[in-house]
């Protein structure tokens, strides 16, 4: 006989809700980069408007998790599954906020010609996006090896961040009249670097879920 079938169904539902939020945040981040690259202010405004959906999903996950704790009194790994889900939801919600921040930078830059191609920034997004998918897989499959890969990929984002910021600083010396745009592009790099750190937090949560102890993967 399968015992606690409803509880296990609800745990699965909680995972599904997280994946849904993760997909939303990833799509928002992707579109924000597109808005920046294509100077599409309308798209940027749309991203800002849609962010309330992420907030609603985040609250739903929290409410659902709290109800599960209250009604099912989980222990051991089941308890960690729910606590970790709440923490992951917070990290993903922050990533969705970074998408809004990038969209705002896109609006501030407007139609001004870019001082450099958006290549590195796009690359940072691509890695962060892969990290996010992999981190959610690591959580759902309770796979610490995948979580470890996420942590390794974060180093690539950090390196790109360093390179891009150095380049922007150099451009600033050559073209000081573009200071406002360079500042917004630097902010964007910072948002992506922070987003990748939040994804690394998700990998840490997977470690905690599986091992029952805390690891700092952002070192």
């Amino acid at each position, binding site marked *: 006989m399968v015992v606690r079938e409803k509880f296990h169904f609800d745990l699965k539902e909680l995972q599904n809700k997280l994946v849904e939020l993760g997909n939303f945040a990833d799509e928002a981040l992707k579109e924000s980069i597109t808005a920046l690259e294509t100077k599409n202010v309308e798209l940027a405004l749309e991203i800002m408007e849609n962010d309330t959906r992420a907030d609603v999903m985040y609250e739903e996950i929290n409410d659902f998790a709290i109800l599960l704790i209250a009604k099912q009194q989980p*222990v*051991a*790994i089941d308890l960690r599954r729910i606590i970790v889900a709440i923490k992951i939801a917070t990290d993903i919600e922050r990533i969705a906020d970074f998408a809004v921040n990038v969209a705002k930078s896109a609006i501030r830059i407007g139609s001004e010609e870019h001082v450099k191609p958006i290549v590195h920034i796009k690359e940072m997004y691509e890695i962060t996006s892969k990290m996010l998918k992999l981190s959610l897989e690591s959580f759902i499959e309770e796979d610490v090896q995948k979580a470890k890969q996420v942590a390794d990929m974060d180093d690539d984002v950090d390196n790109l961040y360093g390179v891009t910021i150095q380049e922007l600083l150099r451009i600033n010396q050559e073209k000081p009249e573009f200071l406002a745009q360079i500042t917004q592009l630097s902010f964007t790099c910072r948002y992506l670097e922070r987003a990748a750190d939040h994804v690394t937090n998700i990998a840490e949560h997977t470690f905690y879920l599986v091992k*029952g102890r805390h*690891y700092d993967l952002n070192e």
Partner: protein
Amino acid sequence: MVVSTYSENKIAEESSDHMSVKKESKKSLAYQTKDLNLWYGTDHALKNINLDINEREVTAIIGPSGCGKSTFIKTLNRMVELIPVVKISGDILYRERSILDKSYKVEDLRTNVGMVFQKPNPFPKSIYENIAYGPKIHGIRNKKVLDEIVEKSLRGAAIWDEVKDRLNENAYGLSGGQQQRLCIARCLAIEPDVILMDEPTSALDPISTLKVEQLVQELKKEYSIIIVTHNMQQAARISDKTAFFLNGEVVEFDDTNKIFSTPSDQRTEDYITGRFG
């Protein structure tokens, strides 16, 4: 909690003690069982039980029906001897003395080891007489002394305020939860050292259950308590140590914090998370 810096080695290592509570100063043992085996005829009900049970702690025994937990607790006051087909090997030490030794009088043992059962079982007498009965058997006749014992015991079981004005009424007039606390008071009246509780709240409503749980927390300051419970959350709430029994064996015995957060054995994890049982 310690935050570890990530490294390959750390991921690989499986620490077994990180969630356990800090080591306490060494307590004396109330009970110790050594390779305890018990058979009901040919049915091997307890298998090589080795448990060290600390004084002034709550030790919870959990496990599915038929795992041997009630049998185990009944060996601790030798109640199990009442069943003729029972055969025991190994040893049970109470305060370092073997209770299986022929010279150990069962009356002496049960003066030190009280028991509370699943269903409240007050005597068909007044509330006062229920408490005074034990001390009277032990030769106390002085009314003033008995009055003091009755009050102290009823206060100790957190029921004094509810019954002090009707001590001469029949105990059967009390609610189930009150009757159970009366039975605990009756147990306290003979000033035991250990209190055995065999599913003491399974017949009680939720509020009465919480009252008995609160009482257990108070009582452990002075008594060693061993409680068999089907309610895992109750074990998590009130016990210091938990033993998980399965098919007559102790699968895991550890700090309750450890058992309910990161148990060492997969079978324990599966049981406490409700995956079987």
